[in-house]
């Protein structure tokens, strides 16, 4: 198959991935990476590098709107990046070293397992609009990890303050490792830390997670790029298509029932993950 035929196919795959990733809240890379491996036979490291580029594009696209609307908390996002960035550097380095050690199949199995872990996390999200009473720890007070946003649905300014920073930083480090290692956003883990440990309102948690994903991905993508693991002939059409698909998904989402979307697509993502694991074991 020649490049002039492959590029439109990659673009279509990426648009579909971006659309589904946006509708399910899992992010386009979760769909695009296994699909590249399974449907196009793209080697795992190249697929992971492509995933990292995809996250950069979608995070910047959605992030600019969230930041403009002041839904992302820049201060809290930057504070937590002190944990996600070292994690991403570690994860991306591990990926490069595993590939050099001819352990790409093991990486594939691990990727499939992570995908299986991420999916229930997205389904089981609490969706608690506003947190209850919050007791901020000393670090939260010291760094001023608080803010407010204008909630259009509630029709008022909602103040908030971060609660337990230590477990949030620990989870963020883990999210960074996963993101750097597998080229996915790991937004599920980030939102978990922001909602459960920092006790931020759902909208702020979602927008701040998206804002942070870009910097985490830049850390991992920087290593993968400099190590020669990113192929622009694959990454460019996929990044463009995923960004377009994610934009379309964000437009479509208000007209669809969240639960229905998840019920339709999540079994499909689980199948992709299982297929990836089987391939890793040389079974598929």
């Amino acid at each position, binding site marked *: 198959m020649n490049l002039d035929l492959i590029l439109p196919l990659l673009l279509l795959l990426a648009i579909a991935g971006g659309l589904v990733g946006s509708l399910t809240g899992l992010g386009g890379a979760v769909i695009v990476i296994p699909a590249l491996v399974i449907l196009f036979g793209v080697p795992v490291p190249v697929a992971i590098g492509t995933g990292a580029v995809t996250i*950069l594009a979608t995070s910047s696209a959605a992030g600019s709107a969230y930041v403009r609307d002041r839904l992302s908390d820049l201060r809290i996002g930057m504070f937590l990046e002190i944990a996600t960035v070292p994690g991403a550097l570690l994860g991306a380095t591990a990926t490069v070293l595993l590939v050099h050690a001819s352990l790409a199949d093991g990486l594939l199995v691990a990727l499939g397992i992570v995908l299986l872990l991420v999916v229930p996390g997205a389904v089981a999200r609490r969706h608690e609009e506003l947190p209850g009473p919050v007791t901020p720890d000393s670090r939260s007070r010291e760094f001023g990890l608080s803010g407010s946003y204008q909630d259009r649905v509630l029709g008022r300014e909602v103040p908030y303050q971060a609660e337990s920073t230590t477990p949030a930083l620990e989870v963020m480090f883990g999210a960074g490792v996963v993101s750097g290692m597998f080229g996915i956003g790991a937004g599920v883990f980030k939102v978990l830390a922001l909602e459960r440990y920092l006790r931020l309102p759902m909208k702020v948690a979602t927008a701040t997670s998206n804002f942070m994903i870009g910097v985490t*991905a830049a850390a991992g*993508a920087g290593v*993968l790029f400099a190590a*020669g693991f990113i192929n622009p002939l694959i990454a460019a059409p996929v990044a463009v298509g995923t960004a377009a698909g994610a934009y379309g998904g964000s437009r479509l989402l208000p007209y669809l029932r969240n639960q229905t979307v998840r019920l339709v697509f999540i079994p499909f993502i689980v199948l992709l993950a299982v297929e990836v694991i089987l391939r890793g074991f040389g079974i598929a």
Partner: protein
Amino acid sequence: MTEPKAPTLPDTEYRWMSALLRGGLLTSLVLLVGALLAYALIHPDLTLAQAIGANPILRFLELPGLGSGLASGDPAAYLTLGLIVLVATPILRVASGFYYFRHGHERGMEAITLTVLALLLFGLLVLGPVIR
């Protein structure tokens, strides 16, 4: 209970950062799409296996190589530049945060953003090339 509001970032910082993300993304997408179309026109018979095997970015990972590639109008060099802009956009955002906190005399946040910035540059300029 929620504490009294801490100093928040001004609207200008949010607007600047939003514009930075949008501008970086648009610039990189224009570079990537344009260079990709040019590359496909020049290499219409390239197969997927060949495209994967001969990763064009490998020629431009060093700055002099990239510079000469851009000067000669090589689409692969512009593809690489598009990727660099995409990776650099969030890094610039961190640099912008550092600048803001430095001017606001917030030593703690200044130290955090500077550390994050140093780590990002370390990954791109040192760690990646070393383990390549």
